């Protein structure tokens, strides 16, 4: 039956992250923050980052969304803590390649648990849900905004 394929997308760990997301909430002392909207469904995600000694020391996200976007955000927050902006950038690139089905190296090493989202590649309509949080943190760090700004999600 058709639904059995869903297991490829909604792995147990993903469902758990979605129902009990890590680092969900807001930070008082964020150095960077950014609001990003998924143009397909209108879901909004806000990511806040605290940097210390050139590394991400704390991170939080808020906003509602689907299972994939919530789980992806939750996993992202777990993985970026302790990373430098350059490392985060590499993670975002790797993640983006993974979920669009492009081949890329050392995925597990770079993405850790978030590798479990690779099943999204078989669900092209959900790629944007998965990448939302990653694009948000990338733009947040890059723009260096203390004030909340609204970022752009590329359309394609």
């Amino acid at each position, binding site marked *: 039956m*058709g*639904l059995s394929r869903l297991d490829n997308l909604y792995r147990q760990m993903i469902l758990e992250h979605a129902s009990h997301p890590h680092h969900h909430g807001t930070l008082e002392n964020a150095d960077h923050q950014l609001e990003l909207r998924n143009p397909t*469904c209108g879901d909004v995600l806000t990511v806040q980052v605290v940097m210390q000694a050139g590394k991400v020391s704390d991170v939080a996200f808020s906003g509602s969304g689907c299972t994939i976007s919530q789980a992806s955000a939750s996993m992202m927050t777990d993985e970026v803590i302790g990373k430098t902006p350059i490392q985060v950038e590499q993670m975002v690139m790797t993640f983006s390649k993974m979920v669009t089905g492009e081949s890329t190296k050392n995925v597990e090493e770079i993405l850790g648990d978030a590798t479990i989202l690779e099943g999204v590649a078989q669900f092209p309509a959900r790629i944007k849900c998965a990448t939302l949080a990653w694009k948000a943190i990338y733009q947040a760090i890059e723009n260096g905004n203390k004030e909340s700004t609204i970022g752009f999600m590329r359309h394609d």
Partner: protein
Amino acid sequence: MAKKMNNLSEDFPILQQKVNDEQLVYLDNAATTQKPRAVVEAITNYYYHDNANVHRGVHTLAERATAQFEAVRKKVAHFINASSEEEIIYTKGTTEGLNWIAASYGETFLKPGDEIVISYMEHHSNLVPWQNLAKKKGAVLKYIDLLPDGQLDMDSAYKQITDKTVIVSLAHASNVLGAVNPIAEVTKIAHLHGAIMVVDGAQSTPHMKIDVQALGIDFFAFSGHKLMAPTGIGILWGKSELLDKMPPLEFGGEMIDWVQLQKTTYKKAPWKFEGGTQNIAGVIGLGAAIDYLESIGMENIASYEKTLIANVLPEMLNIQGIEIYGPLDPEKRTGIISFNLKGLHPHDVATALDMEGVAIRAGHHCAQPLMEYLNVAATARASFYVYNTVADGKKLIEAIKATKEFFNNGIV
């Protein structure tokens, strides 16, 4: 009835396919509809026999193309009961039609302080053009409230439409709630205050008999692709006396009468609005779609869809944890059913249903202010057309139940 309803799907090759190993059940008709063989073959036939640019040609193909192109204009006039084919303007679709009213009529006649009245259920295409116009002109954009079941609040309509109102623009049928609005009644209010009445017919024209004269309205826009016609073709209807007063917007090609170096005169409506080579094959396809719909009969389509909804809706309401938006009385709605399942995001629902072969849509449906009004981030939306069957409805219900099961228990 020339055609048997339950066999219609045979006319649509796309419906005879499996998606994710399951028989396709296409329930995304509010986004776009499928095309019967007759429409696709009309396009093919046009390109294989008659293709030429219209109006300007003396040769045989040009004459054939022109005759067909203008014959469809007559057909459309008859289809919506316009008083003349000169009131029928070819557009890209509903969005372009509504934008043209705003950019031509609106920019010409609106003054600072004037009011434009729409409702909370409008599609962005019948909202943002007015917002933009209001901002440009220093006018005020006002919203008519909805009743708790999603119907237009007529008390609010009486309050919002005033002597300052210059334009009232409403969806004939909502693309989210399925609600059908009492256009004739609102038009009377609008006209009492000297305002014109614009109607977004994108979601009504495919599903019911349209009579623009009986509605008493001033402008009406709809899209071909939502009624079995090709993409890239739509109709803007307007009363001749209004069209005559409106400046054209796209200059060049057949809309022109006489061009001098510093001065140009234009043709009459509708041609003055049709700048450049039109979507001729799209027009031919629209003609074939109207023929197909009329061979069934618009009244028959409307009553068949009501039966379908009367069948599906109670079963959907029986699903635990479901919330359905819009009126529940089949007499007051079209075949669009927006819903949410408790604790599940509509995006996840749509993906799960797709695995079952059931194509529905999830999101804001280009109606973000309505989402806010309903206090939801998004909804799932199943939308039926005349080629759907009771069996399709059953499959939808089953798939929704299986989806709930999957996400609640993590198993299939």
